[in-house]
């Protein structure tokens, strides 16, 4: 099933996305952030907290900042501390944090520290790559279900409640389990530590929680003979650190979208885009599939009027991902079924949008999101709404489908809500499995016209954004109707310009290892 898509327009959109992201690429190369440096420390294995529960990576970065040394990066300071103390990196980091290690600017000392930092970084990345390769083998051996992959969330606040809920959901047929974070975690400028039991609206993302859930789903996957994917949320002030923990603990996917953080969590533009670049370099190397949050635009803006903003943003997100070395196969670009259910022919417009995104990003595991904005507390009506959502999902060959819950807008899902959601999805996906092969849309009909309109409007918007620059465009509220000024939002104080001696061997190694992505992404096949 194909709708006519003007490939010249698609190519034009991609060119515009290159122009839009170019100035920011230059910015990333000249700046770093406190969470990138903490992520570097975590990659070296620095973990745990001090007696006041402050994570050691935070302690070290605070010490470097107060000593005016942060602009050189954390790697060299750690290297000097290791060489000066002769201790392992963790002990050396703790000594470094306490301020007892004098900084030495002698060229020889710096050179030795760089050498140590590069050597150990290479070893740490090799270990991480070997770990990810073992996981890929296990995943290939067990296999994953057919697409759309059924994605469900657990969000009890207590990791020990989450585990049985996640296992139950996987037994019921879920392909992907997401553990929603506690409300407000995206705005914490540190990652909590250990197993946690007290989140509200979700469970804290911590390395220990990741490990426990991963182990539980691996065990269940082995029993079921089906690999169960695990995802969590990296968008927020600690995006690179969450990515490191996800890489270390074997997560398959991450919500990883700076634009989402800017618009919906009021995180500073420069902070989170810089964080995102380093985070995506690591995702690319580790094969972590990212999810982007364009679906959210339609919760604050009208889905019919603003559909093109989703597509425009996807082009920008695609380009940011390509620049970090991600292949299309790792781009879970987000969009949603959010049209007002009172709209005449609304289903046709939803099909048009979903099919357009499918054809524009043919190799991306696009992520389709369920209705939320027009969902009321009437669970029966919501269940009907979700059935049509599932039908459009299978009809337009969506890759990842977050299943709508009949109790959306009421509470975090009950086990029985997930059961009913999976039953609905299984019914529709199976019952309409090959419907897409049987349909040829009227080339001049409402669906084709709507798709053409959305693409045209997306290109027009990208032209505007390219003219004024992404930062200015966000400042005037082009996405989601939300305006964010360049110097506003949370976390700007954590961004700093790199010193000429700045050194981040992980970035250098990841950057050098990027697959050749300067090429234009594959264009969708021409349609008759």
């Amino acid at each position, binding site marked *: 099933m194909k709708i006519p898509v003007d490939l010249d327009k698609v190519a034009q959109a991609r060119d515009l996305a290159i122009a839009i992201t170019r100035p920011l690429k230059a910015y990333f190369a000249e700046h770093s952030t406190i969470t990138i440096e903490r992520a570097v420390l975590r990659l070296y294995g620095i973990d745990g907290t001090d007696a006041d529960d402050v994570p050691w990576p935070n302690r070290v970065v605070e010490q470097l900042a107060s000593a005016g040394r942060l602009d050189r990066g954390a790697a060299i300071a750690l290297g000097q501390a290791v060489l000066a103390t002769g201790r392992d990196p963790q002990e050396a980091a703790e000594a470094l944090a306490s301020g007892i290690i004098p900084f030495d600017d002698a060229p020889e000392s710096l050179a030795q520290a760089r050498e140590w930092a590069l050597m150990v970084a290479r070893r740490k990345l090799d270990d991480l790559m070997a770990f990810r390769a073992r996981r890929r083998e296990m995943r290939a051996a067990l296999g994953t279900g057919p697409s759309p992959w059924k994605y469900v969330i657990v969000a009890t606040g207590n990791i020990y409640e989450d585990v049985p809920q996640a296992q*139950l959901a996987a037994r019921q047929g879920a392909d992907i389990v997401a553990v929603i974070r506690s409300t*407000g975690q995206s705005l914490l400028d540190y990652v909590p530590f250990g197993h946690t039991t007290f989140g509200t609206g979700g469970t804290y993302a911590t390395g220990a929680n990741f490990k426990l859930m991963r182990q539980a789903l691996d065990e269940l996957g082995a029993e079921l003979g089906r690999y169960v994917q695990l995802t969590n949320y990296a968008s927020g002030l600690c995006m690179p650190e969450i990515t490191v923990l996800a890489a270390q603990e074997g997560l398959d996917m991450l919500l990883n979208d700076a634009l989402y953080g800017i618009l*919906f*969590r009021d995180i500073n533009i420069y902070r989170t885009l810089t964080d995102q670049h380093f985070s995506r370099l690591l995702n690319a190397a580790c094969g972590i599939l990212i999810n982007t949050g364009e679906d959210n635009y339609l919760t604050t803006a009208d889905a019919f009027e603003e559909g093109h903003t989703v597509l425009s943003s996807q082009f920008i997100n695609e380009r940011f991902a390509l620049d970090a070395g991600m292949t299309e196969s790792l781009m879970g670009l987000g969009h949603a079924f959010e049209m007002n259910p009172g709209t005449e022919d609304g289903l046709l417009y939803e099909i048009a949008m979903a099919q357009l995104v499918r054809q524009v990003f043919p190799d991306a595991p696009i992520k389709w999101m369920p209705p939320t904005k027009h969902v*009321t507390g009437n669970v029966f009506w919501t269940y009907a709404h979700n059935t049509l959502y599932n039908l459009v999902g299978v009809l337009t060959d969506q890759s990842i489908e977050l299943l709508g819950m009949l109790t959306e807008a009421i*509470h975090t899902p009950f086990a029985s809500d997930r059961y009913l959601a999976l039953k609905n999805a299984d019914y529709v996906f199976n019952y309409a499995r090959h419907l897409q092969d049987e349909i040829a849309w009227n080339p001049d009909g409402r669906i084709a016209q709507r798709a053409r309109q959305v693409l045209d409007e997306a290109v027009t918007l990208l032209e505007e954004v390219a003219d004024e620059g992404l930062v200015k465009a966000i400042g005037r509220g082009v996405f989601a109707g939300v305006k964010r000024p360049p110097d506003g939002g949370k976390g700007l104080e954590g961004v700093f310009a790199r010193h000429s001696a700045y050194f981040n061997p992980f970035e250098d190694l990841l950057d050098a290892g990027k697959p050749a992505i300067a090429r234009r992404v594959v264009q969708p096949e021409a349609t008759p």
Partner: protein
Amino acid sequence: MSLVKQPDLTNVLPYGDTLDDGKVQCSFALPVPAGPEAAEAARRMLLQLGLKDPLLVAMEEMGPSTTFFVLYGTATVGVDYATIHVPKAEFEHLDMHEIDDLIERVLGRELVVVGACPGSDAHTVGIDAIMNMKGFAGHYGLERYRQIRAINMGAQVPPETLVARAIEEGADAVLASVVVTQKDLHITTLTHLVEIMEAEGVRGRILAIVGGPRMTHELATELGFDAGFGPGSFAEDVAAFVAQELIRRQSR
């Protein structure tokens, strides 16, 4: 005389297909395997809830030792609808133009409204629906009102920041939108907000209004707010209340 029976409003019962039949639909899960014992357990659950004649219509095992049930039962007691009094924000419903005209005519100045999702709440859907130009479901938001200067501070605003901004802007009303209510998070945040307004000495001067999917006027007033708006409320409800309450206060 009509043969159609009328409900007795002093003893209202759930309505299935016959007036006063008391029919109630229930669904829930129990952490036990499906089977005759599970079915009996589900029926007993309804009996213990005071529903008679429990009828089990669906029992589906949704995992090891977890079963989903759908049942019907019959309520045995009715409620006295006639004497129910639910506190509501008192105001006359007006449309946007009428509200603008009223403000201009009686108050003779622009009103300032500052809104936010206070505390850790990150869900701006509600505050955006009330405040943003576009509004929701065809009801324009406060930004669209000629006589209202609306400042939407967005999500996760500390109550201190919200109150400080309201003072700085010379606000007539503070709007708090609370969506996340797990573990009564919103109660703590809202109580804190009112306390800060009192501590700053502006509680009598600035109207405190709260809205959200789980909000009622009664709960809002218990927490010390002037009004609470639940689901189905639009910008004109908030604006009409603010304008009319300010007029009431001015004329006192």
